[in-house]
């Protein structure tokens, strides 16, 4: 009986895992970054430049992919709760009222990896399967 319940639980867990869609992006930071895990809201604040420092006071340097990149679209909807176009509108407001500049937009995943590796406070996201070349994956709650 106990074995049967265990098998059922294991099957249910496997089914649940199989139903979860694969993540469309991986959040990466510089290898020297001591932060291992962040809240989604921290990530959103970092990319909207409302939060500008890591806990160790290093300036956060967010970097975006281009507006049509699938990883950018999913990241924007899931982390920022806005479409890419809405985020762009947010930055238009900030730019022309003198309140801030958007993160740089890089053309592809490899460029994001290279940027993150060359800037200690950098944070970016790339599509799954991208060669991370030593960048550190950041876990998002």
């Amino acid at each position, binding site marked *: 009986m106990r074995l049967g319940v265990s098998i059922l639980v294991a099957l249910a867990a496997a089914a649940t895992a199989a139903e979860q869609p694969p993540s469309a992006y991986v959040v990466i930071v510089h290898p020297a970054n001591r932060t291992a895990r962040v809240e989604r809201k921290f990530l959103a*604040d970092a990319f909207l430049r409302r939060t*500008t420092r890591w806990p160790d006071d290093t300036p956060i340097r967010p970097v975006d992919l281009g507006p049509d990149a699938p990883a950018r679209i999913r990241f924007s909807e899931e982390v920022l*709760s806005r*479409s890419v176009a809405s985020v762009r509108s947010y930055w238009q407001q900030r730019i*022309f*009222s*003198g309140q801030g500049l958007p993160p740089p937009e890089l053309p592809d995943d490899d460029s994001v990896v290279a940027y993150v590796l060359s800037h200690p406070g950098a944070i970016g996201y790339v599509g799954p399967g991208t060669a991370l070349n030593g960048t550190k994956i950041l876990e998002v709650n």
Partner: protein
Amino acid sequence: MTTSTRFLLVAVVTVGLALRPAAAAELSLPGQLPSLDVHGFISQGFLLTSANDYLADSSRGSFEFSEVGLNLTLPATDRLTLGVQIFSRKLGPLGDYRATLDWYYLDYHWRDWLGIRAGRVKLPFGLYNDISDVDSARTAILLPPSIYPAQNRDFLLAQTGVEAYGYTRLGSAGALDYRLYAGTIFLDVKPQPGSPFTVVDLNVPYVAGGRVQWLPIDGLRLGGSLQFLRLDTDLLAPSGSGRVALRIPATLWVASAEYAVQDFLLAAEYSRWLVKTESSNPSLFPEGSTTSERAYVLASYRVNSWLQAGTYYSRLVPDVDRRTFPAGMQHDFALTLRFDVNRYWLIKAEGHYMRGTAGLSPSLNDNRPLSALTPDWALFAVKTTAYF
């Protein structure tokens, strides 16, 4: 250069910029200096009203609706930023294409919860005052005119002084965003067509206030703004009958709510502006006090990457003690379509049904009293903007 040549020039440059895909320029400076960020926009609009002249000679159709802006931002260090925006516009009798420094500042971002800006800084009043001339950042051509009157831009857009700002997380209660400022507003003495008085001197001894916004959940902003200012002016009465000094203290407040999630946006604001007039010679210029009431509700939706639709209802009552029709109120029902041709060029078309004449200017309408103007009228506007 004639006015029509200027219009043509603005239109040609707009189309030329838009057809050539551009990106924000990042200029590398020599040595170890950080890069300079450059952004800009050019707009050309057209206004047509079924009756009455609104903002320009709109009853005959007017192209006197142009804006050009160029800004430079230099993140000098990770805490210090310098910025400047040059702006020029023509809106009916306002602007006349004169280039002005729209804003300029030195921003020291000490912590996320405290930063200081000094210079000419946009006034954070309500949800959208500081973006009222940023066409690319919204759906509507004209922001709800009850709270964001286009003709008051010189008074309400920016102050020269200091501002403290910050953003702080409140744990599970969300976050708080705040800005506090104090300074002055430099105004030019301009002839007032239709007024029997001649303005000799005009200054704002102080403007001070703040805006606090609570962000309890993703996309929701609940806020309040409060502003105190005083306008001092010396007037010369008609036919040399004397001089009168006026002090006009004003208190403005607005309560705001906005919910923006994915491609949907809903916003509403309610505001009251209390304006007193203290006169050195009440027989020449009477003293008084009025409270105006202003409100709107707005919704917009991004249908796809190139189309947005928006609508709002805006209500203006210039004097809450005299809610007469048509001169004592104006209801504005607006519908907008925005087409994003590409990432750097947009075209908007907007229709308004107006009921009431309180938002009209007698000087634009042959000095006829507002009560004598057509009470039900329509406004049609189109505007194109190129930006990078």
